[in-house]
Each structure stands twice: as C-alpha cells, then as structure tokens.
C-alpha cells in the first residue's frame, strides 16, 4: 500500500442470506482527501461503511484502514476513525457535555485533555452554551453538529459521514460542510462520506465513486465524471450512470420502532 493511501479496499464482497449487498468493490482513498460514495437507496453505501468501521464482517476481500486490517486489528482501526451515522447515535437522556465525556472516556482520551477538547469542539460547532442541556431538547441540526463534535474528540485520522445532511435545512447543511472543509484543510483529516445531494458532493469532494447494486460503476473527480458522461452537472451524470428507476427501501425495523417508541411515550 502506497504511503499516501489511507483506505485501501480490494475485491470487497458482502453477502447477506439472499442478496449481495457489496459486490467485488475496489477503491482507494488518499490521505487528506474528501471522498464520497454516491448511490441510490440500497446501493451498498452503508454496508461498505459498516465493514470499514468494523461493525460488519466482509464475506471476502482485502481491506486496510489507516494501515490496519478491520478484521484482525479492530481496536487499532477503531481508534483511527470517527463516525457520524445516518441516524442519531446520541444518548437523548444525557446532556451534550455528558455525551462528549462518555465518548472521551470510551476512547481513553487522557483526563487533562478531555475538558479542553470538549470545550474546544463544542465551541467549534456552536453548542457550548447548550452543553448542559439534554440532547432530547435539541433539533435535528444541533444533534448532527454534536455528533460531528463527538466524532472528533479522539482526534481521528479519518472521519466517516453517512448521509450527514439528510433532513437538515440549507442553513445547517451549509454550516456543516463548512466545518468539514475547515477540518479537512486545517487538520488534513481524510473524510469519507455518502450523500444523496449531488450539488454538495460536487462542491466539496475531491473524488467520488458512483455505486449501484453493490458495484462501483465509475470513480473519479466530479469533472471527470461529467466529461465521461458528457453531462453538465454531477446529478445528470449520476442519473445517466444509475438510471431513472426509483428504488424502494422497505421500512427498517428502526422506523417501525420509532413509531412504537412515540406510541409508548418514550420520545
């Protein structure tokens, strides 16, 4: 693996009982790059992220994250990245500060550094004055900002963002990308993201890979993709490559659960 490659994936395949979610996928992400996976629902984006972040085991293929193998060096891989999941992974019953503190302890951030970093990061995402409020009182955008701050507490080399701007208003989205780009520029942090918003990918990513039915169809810079498909925007290029049919994703157990949760008066 070349020195400047931080994520190296070769022939990655993940099969669930009947379906092949990720089918012989290969790609590389360079250090300090902003790289995006673009694809319709059910294309295999989240599955790939879960494998890279040790949450799922691949059926076959070679992977390397920050010099480590997610299968055999889980702890080292886990220390290397921060992640913001598609849906919230905060504890609503704890305050913003407590969520940060929990993360810092889990990642063994030394006690004397903990306070300083948490303060710095909460100020960075403009949540310092709300630090003692319960997360359940936060809006979707605030939660997402808090998750980003939390993911950075242990100074990861790679930041994974799984559809970080889903359901956010344009102001918050803008704000959020500014943070991400600033981190990428100032700290040289590698960012791996997935998104449905093509203009956003076009604006902030160095390179993108278009994935559909578990396979990478094309990868390169946004300009290269537009040239190759002879289109004007990344969205047109995307549609040309992946087709116009609508993908159905069945309601996940999470959605069902959330409804029940509401009915039980929990949230």
């Amino acid at each position, binding site marked *: 693996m070349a020195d400047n490659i931080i994520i190296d994936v070769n022939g990655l395949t993940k099969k669930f009982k009947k379906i092949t979610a990720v089918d012989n996928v290969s790609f590389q992400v360079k250090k300090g790059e902003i790289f995006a996976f673009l694809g319709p629902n059910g294309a295999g984006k989240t599955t790939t992220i879960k494998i890279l*972040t*040790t*949450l799922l085991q691949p059926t076959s293929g070679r992977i390397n994250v920050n010099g480590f193998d997610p299968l055999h060096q889980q702890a*080292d891989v*886990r220390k290397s990245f921060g992640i913001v999941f598609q849906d919230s992974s905060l504890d609503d019953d704890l305050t913003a500060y407590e969520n940060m503190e929990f993360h810092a302890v889990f990642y063994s951030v030394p006690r004397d550094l903990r306070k300083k970093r948490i303060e710095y990061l909460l100020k960075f995402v403009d949540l310092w004055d709300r630090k003692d409020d319960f997360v359940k009182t936060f809006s979707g955008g605030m939660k997402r900002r808090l998750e980003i701050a939390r993911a950075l507490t242990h100074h990861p080399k790679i930041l994974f963002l799984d559809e970080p701007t889903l359901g956010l208003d344009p102001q918050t989205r803008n704000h959020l990308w500014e943070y991400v780009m600033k981190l990428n520029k100032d700290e040289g942090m590698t960012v791996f993201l997935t998104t449905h918003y093509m203009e956003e990918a076009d604006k902030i990513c160095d390179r993108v890979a278009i994935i559909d039915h578990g396979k990478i169809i094309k990868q390169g810079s946004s300009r290269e993709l537009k040239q190759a498909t002879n289109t004007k925007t990344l969205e047109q290029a995307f549609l040309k490559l992946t087709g116009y049919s609508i993908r159905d994703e069945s309601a996940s157990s999470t959605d*069902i659960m959330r409804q029940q*949760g509401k009915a039980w008066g*929990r949230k």
Partner: protein
Amino acid sequence: MGAIYIMWLRQIKKYWRSKARIISSLAQPILFLVALGVGLGPVFQKAGDGNYIQFLAPGIIAMAILFTAMFTGIEVIWDRQFGFLKETLVAPVARTKIMLGRTLGGATVATLQGVVVLLISLLIGFHVSNWAYFPLALVFMFAIALFFTALGTTIGSGFRDMQAFPLVINFIIMPLFFLSGALFPLNDLPGGIVAVTEVNPLTYGVDGLRYCLTGLGHFSVIADILVIVIVAIIMNVIGSYAFSKIQV
C-alpha cells in the same frame, strides 16, 4: 476500567433522572404489599402461618428487583433502536466491558429499588428481625439483580424491537415471580409446583433474602447464596456472549 465505570454511571444517571419511572415502578410493589399483605393477612393468620406482611415483604422486594433488573437489561433494545448502541460498538472497547458496565449499572439501580421497597414495607408494618444480617440481604438483592439484568440483556440482544416486552412480561417475569415462593410458603405444596419452584433461581434469592430479613428460611442460607451467585455468574457469561453477537 474507565469504560465500565462510565457505562455504570450512565445507567445510574438515567435512573435518577427518570423520576416518573422510579415512582411508577414502585407503584406495583406497593400495591402488592398493601392489597395482598393486608387483604390476605387474616387468612394467612388463620392458617397458622403468622403475620403475612412479615412473610410477603421480602418476596415483594425481590419482585421490585426482578422487574427493574429485567427492564434495564432488556433496554439494550432501546439503545440499539435509538442508535446509542452503535456509538459503543464502534469504540475501541471490548464488548465484555460494555456488557459488564451495563449490567453492573442495571443491578445497582435494581438493588436501590429493592432498598426503597424495603423502607416502604417498614412503614407498612414489616420489621427486620436482625439488622446485622442486612449486609447479607444486600448481597442477595445484588445477586438477584445481576442475574436478571444479565437475563434481560440476553433477551434484549436477540430482539430488534419492542415485541419482546409483552412476551417477556407474560412468559418470563410473571411465572418466575409467582412460582418463586415470594407469595406463599413452600411447605406442603403439591409435587409439581415444588419441582418448578426448585428449578427457579429466584426461589433461592427470595428464600435467602427472607432469611436475612426475618430469620425464616426454607433452604439453608448457604445453599441459597451458592445457587443465586452461581446462576448470576453463569447468566452474565451467557449475556456477554449474546451481547457480543449483536450486529447493528
């Protein structure tokens, strides 16, 4: 160590903050104490078994622990559905530690709940025969709590949604509670029931607790403590395994 502590602390904080939950989970044991203890008291007395509140209170304390422990264990489903579980599972911390922190936290909370029910039963007329045994009573409470928190975690690890709750209440919690000697003495029971109570771990927890608080016991207190501690350890090993198999 830090990870176990912060998981434990989280459980305590969540418990302490949900005042509504504390109160509602105390309502049921109090209802049982008052309705059964006072209502069936005269019958019990006539049958020649003495003061029913005195007999019943340790059983109801165990019941409060059973419910609280089971539910804090099974709340791993909530953690999964509301996403927080993912945050813990991608962290560089062994799953055994996460499970252990959760279980210790849940067991602590359940034990506290048991102590509160003990205090309430003192108000209703229960009296502790010898306070020197109180520390041992706490050990019993904690062992019962550990067993059921781990059982709850095991069940919670296998379910994806709330469907598990009614199942667990009707098919696990209620039978375990009613067939544990919490409500009636184990002497002179028909053989079938005896067999069931003897394989129910809660029976030994209740019996040991009753011995510590009132001086009355069915089995020897040594047997009680051995059984409940050993099953608690075994259940925690099973729980750790189930928890380590969770995929999100």
